[in-house]
């Protein structure tokens, strides 16, 4: 499992009126998600451990260098109903030709869209049970981070930095971690790892 706490460094991401910074909260969320995944027996790699800001491609490269990885990027939104969580998978991408056996870097997600959707729906289902008002199924969006990731990949976005205090978001972290871990465990049997490694840069 590759966990991506979004933003970091000079990019704080979404900012709330009470000084809440998306980049800091997702890093704390990642710690709890990592623990929940490890309890399920998954090996976990993070795209950043501290307040760095790797590029989109660097983050994708972390996942693309693993064989049979599953990628989750964590976000906190600026809007939306506070206390809810949404899972996004990448919008449809033009299919890639496989004559060379290589996957174009800029459309690396294309062959994995079906798997991403299956994984996303599982995680969204568990999130909907925990956080009322969340959608029942994952949604599609042109998320830049997902496009270059050659693995089943989802974005999990929590609403939102507009909550009164950081504690409101912190209370959601165990539920989010549990939903991702249970989703990953449920998805694992259906994920047949391709024989070739991920996209080549």
């Amino acid at each position, binding site marked *: 499992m590759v966990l991506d706490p979004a933003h970091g460094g000079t990019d704080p991401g979404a900012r709330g009126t009470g000084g809440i910074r998306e980049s800091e909260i997702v890093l704390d969320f990642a710690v709890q998600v990592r623990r929940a995944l490890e309890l399920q027996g998954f090996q976990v790699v993070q795209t950043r451990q501290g307040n760095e800001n790797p590029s989109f491609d660097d983050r994708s490269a972390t996942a693309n260098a693993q064989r049979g990885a599953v990628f989750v990027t964590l976000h906190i939104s600026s809007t939306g109903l506070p206390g809810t969580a949404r899972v996004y998978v990448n919008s449809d991408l033009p299919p890639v030709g496989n004559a060379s056996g290589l996957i174009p870097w800029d459309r690396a997600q294309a062959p994995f869209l079906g798997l991403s959707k299956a994984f996303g729906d599982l995680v969204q289902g568990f999130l909907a049970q925990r956080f009322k008002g969340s959608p029942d199924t994952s949604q599609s969006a042109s998320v*830049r981070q997902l496009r270059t990731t050659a693995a089943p990949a989802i*974005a999990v976005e929590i609403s939102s930095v507009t909550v009164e205090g950081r504690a409101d978001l912190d209370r959601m972290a165990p539920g989010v971690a549990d939903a991702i871990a249970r989703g990953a465990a449920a998805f694992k049997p259906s994920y047949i790892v391709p024989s070739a490694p991920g996209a080549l840069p």
Partner: protein
Amino acid sequence: MTPSWKSWLIGGLVVAVFGAAIYFPILRRRVKRAARLQQQSEEQARRELTQPIAINPGDPRVKTKVFWVSDAIDSTLAPVTVELPLSNDPVLRSKQVLNTLLAGPVDAELRTLPPDASLLAFYLLPDGTAIADFSEALATSIPSGIVSEQLAVNSITRTLEANVPQVQRLKILIHGQEVETLAGHLDLTGTFVVNTKVAQEPGKPTPTASSTDKPALPAAAEKTPTPVLATLTADEAPGKLGQTESRP
């Protein structure tokens, strides 16, 4: 200095301090108001400079569907019908509907685009690909997040889809430049599919549109010149990222 002078001096100072304490907040309010008025007039001047597309009262008034947020919490889009005199020229028409979208609804909470953003330029290529160039405020003032950025782009593509059938795909530029994302999340390197209704090419069947809740085109829109032929697949829905350009 005699004692009476001292008391006069102290009294004068006390009066001055009290006067200053009363006057200072008034002065601060006046300075703030002046700054706000200057900002407003700058904004007005900028809008006049960057939005030279005036509505021609001679153009037929048509029911125009503009997509704003239906509910500030739920974050879904809904069409609002407004009657506007729209040009039959697709470029002018696109500028008119996008400027209406940018102007925002009556309830400011339901707007999808930042109030200080403006449309700098709009081009339409013969293959139906449109290029909309927005001011930097579109990227810098929009609330960061997947949901808010997607709402912004969807409101643009769906407003164009409902009113300008010639626009098949849309490329969004910020201040004349291609940018990687709108505000850190939504991918702007490709083109967005706007209109899934592909024009009838001679000898080719028209694919069925995948979207079931497609808004009907206004009568005047149907009278506009025949859309340029496009090569779209039937399974592309409005607002999805279309074909990505070749990248290094």
